[in-house]
């Protein structure tokens, strides 16, 4: 019985696919790139996406006002130019005349008004609506306290879009590269409703259009002939492999079934480099920080000396080398390097030898009344379940035991871990990570503002810090603003509400055949910049 069912189905799949193969092979010799996407998108609706692996696909399909170029710098997208008012609160974008949707209709300013209003509509429940909060009236509308028509979005004419902000936001052009700022096609959404993202339905304005989607197997997009820059798009077809099994992806790359692949197992770096060659195994610093947060509400972690001691006793080089095989870089600052115009202050003990740092840590603990001869120091490390996080926790526990602490570690799955922290659960030390939404130090430092209930896990509260952050929003001069932010970070680095361990790296396998792939901190590698030899 089972045999008959299966043979019929296999037969059906055979027949349809054989036909498809025949059709595609008779068409024309097309350039195809096969991209390991690093995971499966949960949605292609720009209002609902929340993670880089969704962004990789959506950014090939759609184009916002600004985009990241091949080097990760902000560049014109649908907007060919823009002007900013003197007080920095009004942005006027001039849209390209030849920007078109994949159905041939022009991309107009009204599309952006529609799309951003949709993202901010509380009924859409966009997870990343906060990215657009700098827009006037956005927060009020999104929290059901204001109206859509009060939003600072205005289509002056079809090709002129005027966006008024709540306050000057020096990183606003960065925000406009974000996927929440990408336009969607109103007619398309009205026609198909929730099904608009499905292949065959989706109308997009980027270099590619969606043609096929088989969950966990492949997603296919082909070159959009209506794209304004189509003449410079060299690859005809993109096939995304949504597997998140990093070992399987590495095998597929090795077998020549993938041309580029995002993410490989960090501890496999040396092994892969030996096998595939250094040029095909790429690791570059990302705008992301791996850190532990202290619960500053309760002793002994309300004592700066204890926090400092624990922080400086951690051997970052060891974590970076032994746990991550050099794919994460040792870090002593909360804001990762690579933000344009910003340099983090240098923490005091960076250059000291690790042994000296340990001695200093012991002194500090003694002063605070802990360690040998003092009160017992009990520390519980919480982390979200993951093999590498576990190795880090075990190593850190060991380093802290050397100071005379009693250390226990516990893990929860990722949802439970973060739910606990966000709901204000009490803890000693907890693992956390943050990767930038936009390349500005504010995106990191904002996590430690005392009013930030969701992200300030350790409930760090320092009025001076809050004041500096406030001042940074009001400062219009970019250089001065960066100086204020650096001052704010200096406070964090002296008071240790969090202890940064490492900068994450973006890990890619890139075939020698692929040209135009350049490493960048924002980790954006649009297919339209790539070519295959």
């Amino acid at each position, binding site marked *: 019985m*089972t045999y008959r069912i299966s043979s019929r189905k296999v037969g059906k799949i055979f027949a349809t696919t054989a036909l498809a193969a025949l059709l595609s092979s008779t068409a024309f010799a097309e350039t195809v790139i096969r991209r390991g996407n690093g995971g499966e998108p*949960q949605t292609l609706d720009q209002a609902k996406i*929340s993670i880089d692996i969704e962004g990789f696909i959506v950014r090939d399909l759609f184009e916002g006002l600004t985009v990241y170029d091949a080097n990760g710098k902000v560049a014109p997208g649908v907007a060919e130019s823009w002007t900013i008012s003197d007080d920095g609160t009004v942005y006027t974008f001039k849209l390209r005349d030849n920007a078109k949707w994949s159905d041939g209709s022009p991309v107009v300013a009204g599309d952006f008004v529609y799309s951003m209003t949709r993202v901010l509509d509380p009924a859409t429940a966009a997870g990343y609506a906060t990215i657009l909060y700098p827009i006037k009236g956005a927060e009020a509308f999104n929290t059901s306290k204001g109206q859509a028509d009060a939003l600072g979005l205005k289509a002056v004419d079809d090709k002129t879009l005027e966006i008024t902000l709540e306050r000057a936001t020096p990183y606003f052009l960065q925000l406009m590269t974000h996927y929440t700022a990408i336009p969607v096609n109103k007619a398309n959404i009205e026609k198909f409703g929730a*099904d608009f993202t499905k292949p065959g339905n989706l109308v997009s304005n980027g270099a590619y259009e969606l043609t096929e989607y088989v969950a966990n197997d492949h997603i296919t997009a082909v070159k959009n002939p209506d794209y304004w820059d189509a003449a410079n798009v060299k690859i005809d077809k993109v096939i995304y492999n949504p*597997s998140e099994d990093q070992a399987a992806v590495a095998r597929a790359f090795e077998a020549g079934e993938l041309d580029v692949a995002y993410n490989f197992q960090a501890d496999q770096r040396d092994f892969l480099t030996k096998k595939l060659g250094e040029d095909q195994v790429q690791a570059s610093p990302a705008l992301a920080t791996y850190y532990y947060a202290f619960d500053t509400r309760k002793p002994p972690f309300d004592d700066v000396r204890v926090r400092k001691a624990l922080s400086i006793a951690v051997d970052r080089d060891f974590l970076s080398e032994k746990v991550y095989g050099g794919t994460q870089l040792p870090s002593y600052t909360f804001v990762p390097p690579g933000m344009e115009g910003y340099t983090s202050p240098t923490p005091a003990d960076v250059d000291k030898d690790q042994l000296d740092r340990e001695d200093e840590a012991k002194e500090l603990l003694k002063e605070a009344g802990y360690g040998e001869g003092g009160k017992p120091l009990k520390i519980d490390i919480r982390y979200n379940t993951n093999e590498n996080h576990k190795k880090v926790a075990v190593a850190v526990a060991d380093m802290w035991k050397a100071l005379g602490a009693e250390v226990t570690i516990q893990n929860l799955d990722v*949802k439970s871990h973060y*739910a606990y922290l966000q709901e204000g659960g009490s803890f000693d030390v907890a693992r956390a990570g943050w990767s930038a939404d936009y390349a500005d130090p504010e995106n990191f430092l904002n996590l430690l503002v005392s009013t930030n209930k969701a992200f300030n896990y350790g409930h760090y509260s320092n009025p001076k810090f809050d004041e500096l952050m406030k001042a940074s929003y009001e400062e219009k001069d970019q250089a001065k603003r960066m100086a204020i932010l650096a001052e704010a970070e200096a406070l964090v680095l002296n008071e240790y509400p969090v202890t940064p361990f490492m900068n994450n790296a973006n890990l890619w396998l890139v075939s020698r055949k692929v040209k135009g792939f350049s490493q960048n901190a924002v980790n954006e590698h649009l297919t339209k910049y790539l070519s295959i030899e």
Partner: protein
Amino acid sequence: MLRFILSRLLSSAPTIFIVMTLSFFMIRLAPGGPFNLERPLQPEVMANLNAVYHLDQPVWKQYIFYLWNVLHGDFGPSFVYKDYTVSELILQALPYSLVLGAWALLIAVFGGIALGVYAALRQNSWADYLLMGISALGNTVPNFVIGPVLTLIFAVSLAWLPTGSWGNGDFRHLVLPIIVLSLPQLAVFARLTRGSMIEALRADHVRTARAYGLPARSVVGVHALRAGLMPVISYLGPVAASVLTGSIIVEQMFSLPGVGRYFVLGALNRDYTLVMGTVVLISVFIVVLNLIVDIIYAFVDPRIRHD
């Protein structure tokens, strides 16, 4: 027989209902919800999401709402795969799992029985030891070891087969996943068959059949095998249910679009509606396949009648 089938199907409805109810409340006991992400959402945004998905209502209301929808054939939208409903996700993925699972089951059952009978007939010979040794290995070496090893040999080094993905549905793509999926079950079927066949070969009726001078083929193939298959058949029901509904390990390893991974991803993502959908799916499969097993019993063993 028809009455038996109908009454069994009717009596299984409450079972599925109880399973659904228990799962509905149990998944909500797990800490965190579908929208707790590694990178937390702002409270305002979380409130919007909870409102859209009715998670701001009391749990009993959510339960009644859910049951009402299920009675109307609506299993709700997936909380995590937001562009799809649960029914869409499962129905799109199920055919792939069924094809894969059916092949794997076929190979496991027939291969296992054949090897088991062979080993039983040559009990304590080197062939028996070899087969049982291999099957012990097949049963104990986990498929997440066998899979990558086979891939490294046949896909990466020899490049005979692709490393994964359904591709065009080309059989080459399915060879490795089917082997990995069927091997552990094949081993179990072989051992089960061998054990019960050895017993059956010593049974009185088989000895009698031999004494009557029946040809060996008929003694083994009809008289002994019938009795020897009983434990195999009982094992078949639950195994078929689990093999046909896919395996997350095999699907992840070979990047296949099956339904198996939704069981695990649904739970890990706290995708409440998806978890419920998979629970209903597996319950239905178990109920139906156990029923089929009971019917097969009646055919194989004349002593069992369902009237």
